[in-house]
């Protein structure tokens, strides 16, 4: 996939990747209460709804220029490469002339004059040719080395740019983008760019200069024959454009089908057990067959059409060859041209059509590279988060959080949070309850400034969160989410993630406090156990405990717990609750929970419905009020209470 140059100029088909559904970018979020925290799984976008725009170079010229702009930091090297290529190709073009002289010497001696061949002179001429070829070899080798480095460094920078860009993009951007799609742009598309640049850049330069050099030499040898040869160029261009237009369409279709097939595969494997248990294998296999057939049609067409560029150009070259041979032969017979000249010219004509053929297939390859570049540029051009302001929080922060008439929605047509006000005093625990979709998670997202509010003000210790750098704000906040996120590393590293430069003692203390220590000892490698990508070597509850340890270690002023204990079994939860109790003591905590046990000891309970706080107070006062909380409590907790009474 990320091979560098591949001499075969079979226009490469889109590289299919696990994470490469070519869906339309940034489909608007149309969920009711999405986005929630967390990875949202990979999604190939809604397939079967005409997803996937395929890859099409929409504006070839400007995008090509912009792509070349990315090579600008390498300008000195590029100039060096151009100079070397010019000299190299000049020498390479001179070669046949010198060899032609050698042939002339032989021809004149053996055929024309019937004398002995002058070997001394022949040797000198051939040494000259050798010198030219050796220099050409060295120069083209060096130029190749430099181009290789130029392209790889540029591609390295491009990946870095995209990666940096991702840190500046608002979360909103990621919500509307299937993860696989984005990944694909950074890896597959950047790869494709690297491949097409590396393949084309050196060859386009060489071919262009060869073409020019050969043309000059052809005119030098015989302008009549040169004019005959020149006819080839418009023919070649016409053929390339005709074929290119058709193959471009078919390639776009191939990309589209590939993306669709990919998301079908993705979906079938992701939901494998359901497909099995619901007995849908046959249907799924049939759907696959249909899409697979579509991909076959498109890719066959694309490969065939682009595949005939070469033979057709070859034929044009051979036609030219024949014409030159005939005309040249006539000229020699007529005495207007030497045999050596014709021989040189025939060699030139091959050197002349070869770069034209190459350029024609380069054009095809470049189309694909530019299409990928456009997809990368789309990411680079995406709107960034609002810039950080220079304000700062008072130190040490106390953790008083206040919402004043806050309104927010993911989608302008669908207000989610409207005119919400609340105060969380330092050290208080705020529990947020309410039905799914009420905006509970959104509320805590806003504290972290994952999203910017549309109106109102959120402040910490009286300072507007919008007026301080996000970094400083988040330093004060620790978070544990329902969707655990651990990276591929050891358990120790994952806990240490909570604090830059945490010491071993701190890590162990956090692990002990959150009961991670207990299960770690049963693992063969203890804290050095490597968590694999799907983290299948740990249970959901164990993963959750690690994320809690991580938050514990970060020692924040404000703590956010979004369903933090839902995957932990109740006995473990009890332990965690105790740890949390300690943890919460000196901090302002926002707790979203479905469990009564988590809610009852909160200082303030916020009952949310449809993005608004409908009730607020502590457990006793809210129960006494016989309002929304009372109804919730009756519906759910009554059973638990009786049970507890029974127990």
């Amino acid at each position, binding site marked *: 996939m990320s091979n560098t140059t591949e001499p075969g100029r079979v226009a490469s088909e889109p590289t299919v990747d696990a994470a490469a559904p070519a869906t339309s970018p940034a489909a608007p979020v149309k969920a009711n209460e999405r986005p929630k925290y967390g990875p949202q799984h990979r999604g190939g976008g809604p397939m079967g709804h005409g997803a996937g725009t395929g890859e099409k170079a929409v504006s070839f010229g400007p995008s090509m220029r912009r792509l070349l702009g990315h090579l600008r930091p390498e300008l000195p090297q590029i100039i060096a490469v151009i100079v070397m290529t010019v000299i190299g190709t000049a020498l390479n073009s001179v070669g046949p002339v010198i060899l032609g002289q050698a042939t002339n010497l032989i021809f004149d001696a053996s055929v024309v004059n019937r004398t002995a*061949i002058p070997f001394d002179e022949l040797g000198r001429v051939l040494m000259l040719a050798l010198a030219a070829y050796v220099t050409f*070899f060295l120069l083209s080798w060096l130029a190749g080395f430099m181009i290789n480095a130029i392209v790889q460094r540029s591609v390295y920078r491009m990946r870095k740019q995209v990666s940096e860009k991702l840190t500046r993009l608002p979360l909103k951007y990621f919500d509307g983008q299937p993860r696989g799609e984005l990944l694909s742009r950074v890896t597959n598309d950047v790869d494709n760019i690297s491949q097409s640049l590396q393949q084309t850049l050196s060859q386009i330069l060489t071919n262009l200069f060869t073409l020019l050099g050969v043309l000059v030499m052809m005119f030098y040898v015989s302008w009549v024959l040169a004019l005959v040869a020149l006819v080839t160029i418009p023919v070649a261009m016409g053929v390339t454009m005709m074929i290119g237009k058709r193959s471009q369409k078919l390639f776009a279709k191939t990309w589209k089908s590939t993306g669709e097939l990919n998301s079908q595969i993705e979906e079938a494997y992701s939901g494998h057990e359901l497909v*099995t248990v619901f007995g849908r294998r046959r249907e799924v296999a049939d759907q696959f067959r249909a899409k697979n057939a579509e991909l076959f049609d498109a890719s066959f067409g694309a490969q065939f059409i682009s595949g005939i560029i070469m033979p057709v150009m070859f034929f044009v070259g051979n036609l030219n060859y024949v014409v030159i041979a005939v005309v040249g032969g006539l000229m020699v017979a007529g005495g207007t041209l030497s045999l050596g000249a014709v021989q040189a010219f025939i060699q030139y004509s091959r050197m002349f059509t070869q770069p034209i053929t190459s350029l024609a297939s380069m054009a095809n390859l470049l189309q694909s590279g530019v299409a990928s570049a456009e997809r990368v540029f789309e990411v680079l051009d995406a709107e960034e988060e609002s810039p950080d302001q220079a304000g700062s929080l008072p130190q040490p922060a106390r953790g008083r959080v206040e919402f004043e008439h806050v309104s927010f929605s993911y989608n302008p047509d669908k207000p989610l949070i409207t005119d919400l006000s609340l105060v969380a005093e330092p050290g208080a625990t705020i529990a947020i309850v309410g*039905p799914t979709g009420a905006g509970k998670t959104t509320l805590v997202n806003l504290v972290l400034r994952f999203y910017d509010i549309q109106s109102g003000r959120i402040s910490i210790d009286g300072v507007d969160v919008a007026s301080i750098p996000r970094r400083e704000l988040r330093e004060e906040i620790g978070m544990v989410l329902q969707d655990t996120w651990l990276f591929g590393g050891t358990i120790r590293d994952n806990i240490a993630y909570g604090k830059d430069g945490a010491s071993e003692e701190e890590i162990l203390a956090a692990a002990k406090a959150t009961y991670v220590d207990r299960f770690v000892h049963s693992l063969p490698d203890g804290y050095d156990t490597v968590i694999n990508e799907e983290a299948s070597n740990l249970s959901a509850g164990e993963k959750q405990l690690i994320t809690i340890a991580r938050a514990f270690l970060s020692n924040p002023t404000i703590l956010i717990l979004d369903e933090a204990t839902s995957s932990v079994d109740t006995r473990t939860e009890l332990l965690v609750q105790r740890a949390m109790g300690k943890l919460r003591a000196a901090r302002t905590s926002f707790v979203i929970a479905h469990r009564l046990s988590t809610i009852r000891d909160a200082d303030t309970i916020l009952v949310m419905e449809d993005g608004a706080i409908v009730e607020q107070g502590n457990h006793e006062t809210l129960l006494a009020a016989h309002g929304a909380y009372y109804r919730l409590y009756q519906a759910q907790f009554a059973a638990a209470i009786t049970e507890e009474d029974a127990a």
Partner: protein
Amino acid sequence: MIRLLGRFLRPYWPQIVAIILLQFAQATAALFLPSLNASIIDNGVATGDTGYIWRMGAVMLGVSLLQIGGQVGATWFGARTAMSFGRDLRQAIFDRALSFSAKEVNSFGAPSLITRNTNDVQQLQMMVLMTAIMIVAAPLMMIGGVFMALREDVGLSWLILVAVIVLGTIIGILIVQMTPLFKSMQGKIDTLNRVLREQIAGLRVIRAFIREPTEAVRFDAANHDLADTAIRAGRRMMTMFPSVFFVMNLSSIAIIWFGSFRIADGHLQVGQLTAYLAYIAQILMSVMMATMMVMIAPRAAVAADRINAVLDTSSSVVPPAEPVTAVTLHGELAFDNVSFAYPGADEPVLSGVSFTARPGEITAIIGSTGAGKTTLVNLIPRLFDATEGAVRVDGVDVRDLDPDLLWGQIGLVPQRAYLFSGTVASNLRMGNPDASDAELWQALEVAQARDFVERMPDGLDSAISQGGTNVSGGQRQRLAIARALVRRPEIYVFDDSFSALDVSTDAALRAALATETADAAVIVVAQRVSTIRNAEQIIVLEDGRIVGLGTHDELLSSCPTYAEIVESQFRASEVAA
């Protein structure tokens, strides 16, 4: 790789024969061109016979047309064969992976299976394509070139040998150096992919803990590593072409030098010398084409190995040879001394599990995380097969039952509620393709999903994105429950299916479910005692063993683990109160 190619290319042997014939014709035609040119120079130009030049010119054009015909034909058949090969291979992998049990899917991992199904196939497909339209011609060109060159003059043939050996050695060295580099490059791309995947998945955590700088360093390390390897591999690549041209040019010089002696001796004509130059160029080009094969092959071989691994794995859950189909199932489910262990694992996940779940009863399973609850329920629809003992439905071992019959009886709501792209209705009808709209609404009603589906813009026809990401976790779970209800199975399996539901929805849903599932055997995996308190039997699972079995009240007195669980939930509430 050979085995895989052999198996999947066999059906296309007529096309392959056609490709070889066409390439042969094409190569032969191409080889005649220099020879014809030599005749023109020697017989036409030397003797001044313009008529001869015209005649031979026409012949040359005809030969050229033959060549292009051969090439276009070979491209047609080549593209067709390669794409058919790719299509068949994708289908075979997909069909095989679909037949896998959860065990095989887990051991490969879904992402890896996807890559194998697409990207790896792509590599092989490209190799077949390149071989068919370019590389097949290489040996033909080479043999033909040597033959034609020998026809012109045997005395210079040692030059061909030397040139081929020199070129072959250079290319051989480069390939030996490149192969490990490419392998390691592939690994580095994987690493970069993994790092970035993690970073996108963990975006919120990274931002909340302000670890962007750490992550930037991590990404940069992977990025740098990849670039370094790519540069090193690229250098070898970039050496290839100059070397080939150098050897080609060098041999031209040598041919003229040594050829001149043969001309002086009268063994060779000048026109023949020119033809010789063309032939040696052709031979060396074919050597280079052959090297391309050597370049693609290692990567394709890796892909082939990965594909073979999938194709050679058969599902550990084998459909019975003579399935029992003639049973009316009532939904009595029995576990008889069942054990299950993952291959290679030291500890079994389940051991000696025995119980019976009767129609009309609720059997609840409770236990700590990692106690084996999900594994236990996965044995029922044969997502796994028990390693010891048997799971029976109405007295018939599930391994002897017709899979369709078995699956038809089970309504599964998995822990991770997954929806398929399509509409609300298409998801619900997965359970029963013939269900009417009224039945769908009924199921939605029970699953407490009616309200929000009604509020969706297109009701039942509202779009659902892949994985169900456009609805909330709670909504996803309720739709998954509705999907199982539509099936009207004899056995319901709820694997911790209420975790994402808020408290009131959970309560309402359980109340509605009770009437809906009255006649079925219901298996509920749960963590909250409140959810299962009313179950007819509760199984307490610890470390894969049943440590308690009975009703809530029985277990309170007889099972310390259960009492502990209840107490923990009770105490948590008490502390809170």
